């Protein structure tokens, strides 16, 4: 999908207005706006959006880029439809998280921070997901999966691929 600058400007304006309604003060909006923009574009923030934010907030572009790149959850590169965040935390590590990661990488054919060719999956490492009681864990977009084993991650990926294929047909 090609984005034109006009489209992005208009969309970001609309999103910014929505965020403004839910804000106490002008100054606390930037991160919320970036979240909303990223959700809208499906897991990434187009660079053009930063330019529009510059006009809307009056902040220098360097500051907006600074914020965008500081936080690991923001991406200005297009990511897959499903962002898989694998928990790299200690409880997952000591409960054989490593073998699950290897299986997941093998299954997807990609490493961390990479996206599959069909743009379906992006694999990322995550800080603790707070589901340590059922470690190892991962999240796929907003959904969490616990008690993972090498076999189970393969099934989960297969289920998504099957669902996507049947949606296409």
């Amino acid at each position, binding site marked *: 999908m090609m984005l034109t600058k006009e489209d992005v400007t208009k969309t970001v304006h609309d999103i910014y207005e929505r965020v403004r309604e839910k804000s106490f003060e002008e100054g606390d*909006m930037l991160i919320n706006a970036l979240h909303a923009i990223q959700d809208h574009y499906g897991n990434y923030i187009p660079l053009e959006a930063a330019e529009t934010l510059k006009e809307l907030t009056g902040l220098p572009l360097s500051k907006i880029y600074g*914020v965008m790149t500081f936080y690991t959850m923001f991406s200005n590169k297009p990511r897959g439809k499903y962002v898989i965040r694998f928990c790299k935390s200690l*409880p997952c590590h000591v409960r054989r998280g490593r073998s699950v990661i290897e299986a997941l990488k093998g299954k997807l054919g990609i490493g961390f921070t990479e996206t599959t060719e069909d743009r379906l999956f992006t694999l990322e490492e995550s800080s603790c997901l707070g589901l*340590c*009681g059922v470690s190892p864990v991962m999240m796929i977009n907003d959904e969490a999966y616990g008690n993972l084993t090498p076999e189970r991650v393969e099934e989960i990926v297969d289920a998504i691929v099957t669902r996507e294929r049947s949606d296409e047909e």
Partner: protein
Amino acid sequence: MPVVESTVLICAGGACISAGEKSTKQALEEKLREYALDGVVRVVETGCMAACDLGPIVVVYPEGVFYQKVTSEAARTIAEEHLLKGRVVDDYLYKSAEGDLRRRPQEEIPFFTKQVKVATRNLGVIDPLDIDEYIARDGYFALNKVLTEMTADEVIKQLKESALRGRGGAGFPTHLKWDFSRKAEGNPKYVICNADEGDPGAFMDRAILEGDPHSVVEAMTIAGKVIGAERGYVYCRAEYPLAIDRLNTAIERAREYGFLGENIMDSSFSFDIEIRIGAGAFVCGEETALINSIEGKRGIPKVKPPFPATNGLWGKPTLLNNVETFANIPQILLKGGKWFSRFGVEGSRGTKVFALAGKINNTGLVEVPMGTSLRELIFDIGGGIPGGKQLKAVQTGGPSGGCIPLEHMDTPITYDALTELGTILGSGGMVVMDEDDCMVDVAKFFLEFTVDESCGQCTPCRDGTRQMLNMLEKITVGEGSEEDLEALKELGEHIMKTSLCGLGQTAPQPVVSTMRFFWEEYLAHVHESKCPAKRCKSLTRIVIREEKCVGCTACARVCPVDAISGVIKEKHTIDPEICTRCGACLEVCRFDAISKVSP
């Protein structure tokens, strides 16, 4: 209207959901409709029921029968057998280590009976989305009391008597924070709830927000009244979408009921709360970094003093407490500070929620009086170590903490006792490790974490931790020397003394602590290129013992990197160049033919 005969509580805490709770609930409800029981059986999704390893959990009332690991198949059986025919289904009951079945483990086994619940009292008991259920459990009574009967001085006096200290990690006396921000000059003032729980292995704040969000809303509103603030923020990490959803619902309901907004409970006091969502930066759990993040900036810490109590959000007086701290407050004000301080021991009063994770039989959340010994927590309540293995260490305090070895298991869990052991109580995460875990690897693991999460502002943390990690990497591949160990110690001391914020000042702690208790293990890596726990990849090999291999191919099939070769019914071999030492083959071999060796 049909009379409800049974109520089924399903744990909808994050862990149970990730173990399949949604399909369990769906299957149960389908069956209930099929049997026309949907009018007389009420199904309620609750917050976390504490025992993560047993999930998804279903409890049927009025009998109180507790079912564990309820898959959708199990849910259908329970609907038919228990709810339709009135017969308890033994297959999904709790089984003790001795093998006997327990129908009501919540009243019978130490994991539940030894708990004293204050901050988590409503978890797994009420529907977190239903404000009426919260009210039925004395919810918003404390707020009413503060608005009608108590002065700000009296509230602070009760907090002082409770001796409550911050539950987020630093353990600062809560009443002092409240008093400082109340007395601070400046207008407007702010109340912030720190829900940026990031310590690996800690998940109590998540569970409280998901299971009892109103307790936090109520306490923040009380804080607003006491310090003179009209606005509050909850800063929650983006990794917790479910907590954010439920908190949002709670805030909306509270507004509808007149517990938030203008003229709360018809008083002259107004207060409202907004949620701000993080975006994946651990350092934002540090209070000044968190404030920067709310202000729409990079989340980097500021030099303290000045403290947020006087110079917080937008430079105004700000009260910052963590989720668990807030969740205790309504109960303290209803029952009195003295009631709370009866629990615990000198210096560490009240109860504390601990998160049990790692190599422990009963994973989950437990709230116990402070001063409980580690042994009681890990063995009596936590059920000990799985697979007959020996406990090696308990990690507390996340990347700012350290590892407590087996010989110190009788230590009472208090702020001071853990500090003496070179770790911290932190936010209450306890990661249990057994003999298969390498302490050098754990130290390296935390340094990787800090290097990743350092905000980059000050040199000791940004570059110092990187250098420490380099040395640890050398050691874990067998190329380290004793000079490296000395250099690690020395650099660690410098980083602790010269870093700007708490994250940097405590970053070397995992190394210092493991060196203190597991020095021999470091020496083995350095002198013999040996990893005694057989964990460090470069110092370990996985081998197949020819005499035991029958050629069943199970290992070759499970290997994710195809490092195992061999044909059926013939001996298999592992190519060490390809093998990642993930250990998947070890688990599937039924002939005890595969083992790890070092070197």
